[in-house]
């Protein structure tokens, strides 16, 4: 058990801080939540700045165009960028955290050369086309069909809840290539260009009012067989690699952000008099312990992954269960601090309160995470 950083790591942190202090003041103002072209441009420009400064794909392997940084350096990066108030990964999320790492791990040299550099430079945005109207928690029940026609797949079906679909160039798409096989065995992973004929995107409004995700209809879309990553019908395994990345480190920066928000909540409460309420004070005190422990759990998971070759383990489910709940508690506490001010939809905490409601659903619901913990970690029998 050692929580001290090496000289090299402290050096890395110092250089990063210096760079952030230099570039952040020059950033343009954040676009409105409803301005998707503006959001894409903003997120892509930030990614480009990271790329030019040598911080893009920090934790990706060098042969994938990354910096080959240690998980600890990656953690420092997420901690420092969040602390400095740097932009969130935003529209680059799927490229950097799901599709990219999957291609890096499972793609051919040619596929890596084609898709990874534009992700790192912020030139191409990806979305994730996994969920379908009838395949959510039971993702393997997906029905979108891909029928082979020479060296192309002809894809038909419908995807739903596809985040950033409106502005994406590529979609990491799960399709059924063998309808006769058991459901986990007949799935393949394709990179589908979003501008291909037959792709229709219909944005869906979230309860927060903006269109964060969309329905994607696929009508005989032709995707080259060369766009398949991994073997035909091996897409489920390829996908599991992606999902473990998603559950592993995706929320690290947010934990740091939550600790910052908690401090701001307490100071606001003191200024507006609600601090006199011991119940509220104690609630915030407990949350402080929660987020501190979540941060330590992240360090624990990261140093465990460091020891096991980089793929985050089932510990990610333990983290996600507690974190998603704590985040919702945090913003409920924020509403208590704001009082009737919590009815002002323009308040940043109110917007975050609304978005926090998705945390126990997206990327595997809390119920599914509990099944995973019970069955895969605790070894309880599968069943109903």
């Amino acid at each position, binding site marked *: 058990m050692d929580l001290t950083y090496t000289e090299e790591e402290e050096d890395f942190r110092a250089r990063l801080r210096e760079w952030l202090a230099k570039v952040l003041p020059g950033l343009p103002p954040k676009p409105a939540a409803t301005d998707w072209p503006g959001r894409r441009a903003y997120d892509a420009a930030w990614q480009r700045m990271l790329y030019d400064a040598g911080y893009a794909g920090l934790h990706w392997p060098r042969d994938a165009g990354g910096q080959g940084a240690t998980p600890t350096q990656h953690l420092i990066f997420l901690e420092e960028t969040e602390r400095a108030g740097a932009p969130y990964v935003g529209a680059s999320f799927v490229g950097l955290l799901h599709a990219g790492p999957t291609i890096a791990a499972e793609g051919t040299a040619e596929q890596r050369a084609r898709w990874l550099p534009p992700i790192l430079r912020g030139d191409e945005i990806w979305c994730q086309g996994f969920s379908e109207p009838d395949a959510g928690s039971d993702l393997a029940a997906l029905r979108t069909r891909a029928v082979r026609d020479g060296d192309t797949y002809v894809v038909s079906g419908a995807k739903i809840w596809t985040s950033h679909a409106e502005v994406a160039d590529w979609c990491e798409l799960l399709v059924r290539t063998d309808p006769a096989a058991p459901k986990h065995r007949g799935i393949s992973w394709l990179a589908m260009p979003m501008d291909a004929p037959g792709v229709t995107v219909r944005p869906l409004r979230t309860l927060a009012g903006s269109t964060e995700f969309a329905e994607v209809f696929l009508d005989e879309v032709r995707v080259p067989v060369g766009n398949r990553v991994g073997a035909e019908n091996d897409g489920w395994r390829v996908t599991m690699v992606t999902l473990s990345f998603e559950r592993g480190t995706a929320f690290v920066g947010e934990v740091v952000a939550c600790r910052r928000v908690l401090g701001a909540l307490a100071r606001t409460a003191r200024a507006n008099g609600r601090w006199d309420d011991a119940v509220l004070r104690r609630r915030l005190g407990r949350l402080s*312990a929660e987020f501190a*422990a979540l941060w330590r759990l992240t360090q624990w998971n990261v140093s465990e992954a460091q020891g096991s070759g980089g793929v985050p383990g089932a510990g990610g489910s333990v983290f996600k269960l507690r974190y998603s709940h704590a985040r919702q508690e945090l913003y409920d506490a924020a509403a208590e601090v704001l009082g009737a001010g919590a009815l002002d939809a323009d308040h940043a905490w109110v917007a975050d309160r609304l978005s926090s409601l998705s945390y126990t659903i997206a990327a595997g619901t809390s119920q599914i995470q509990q*099944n995973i*913990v019970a069955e895969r970690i605790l070894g309880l029998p599968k069943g109903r």
Partner: protein
Amino acid sequence: MTGPVDFQLTDDQRALRAGTRELLAGRFDRDRLRASVDDPALDRALWRELGAAGFFALRLPEEAGGVGLGLPEAALVFEEAGRALLPGPLVACQVLAGVVDGVATGEKIVGLCDGAGEPWLWEHPAACDELIVADGGAQGRTGGAFRSAPDRVVCAPMASVDPLTPLARLTDLPRGEPLPLDVPRLRREAALLTAAQQLGSAARTVEMAVGHAREREQFGVPVGSFQAVKHLCAQMLVRAEIARSAVYAAAVTESVLDVTGAKLLADEAAVRNARDCLQVHGGMGFTWEADVHLHLKRAWLRAECWGVASEAEELLAAALVD
């Protein structure tokens, strides 16, 4: 030069934990545990064996006959003690090993009374050769420590809710011989070691619940195949693992806030896990015969020692606006 941040246990730490588990499995197995329920008088021979194994001298320097290890190692050992429900003033003897002669070796047993808030409780009064009182002072953060012979201490008996921990209530705080002790530090260490025991108990009750859920069948299947049961177990693990991260980190940093947060989360994990473990056991969980109540009652007791939830939450809240 240090290595990269490595929160995992070292090989030595793993060996220490395994060794402690083995020692306790051999010397304090379930039969002994149940025998102690009937007769909670401390087993002096076992105490000396713990002493010989370095249980109390763990953090004393090697020149002083100790093992020269730190708080993280002590936390691992105490986690095992909590798992096994090992009774006795373990925390007192660990934090006072260098202060009272004979404690490090297990020859003598010392009690430690927290004078910060009433009631002033004394664990295992009949077993203690001496009693140290950590005086409250304002908020219990300052104040001194005093040593008294047990026969000088005025106390009233109290029927302890925990069958394994006899208690007495001091009717007056004896200010005997003053001791040059760093009381805030003592409190911090006591809180951390108590939290480590809570962690051990919390992790143990997950195992007990999971074990029962796999064995016990209803409707023709193990009850652990029902989601309602699975999800109870999953949340138990989450609580234990959150507490583990907090306790281990606090053992390394020794900061007041980290220790306070760790105690808060470990108390919650131990108490709530014992409750859920009881639920998973059904009617069996409500019996004297099952060990579940022993975990629950000890968890309640430890939650009252060295910082209760309300104090911890207020302290952490105050730090947010500092």
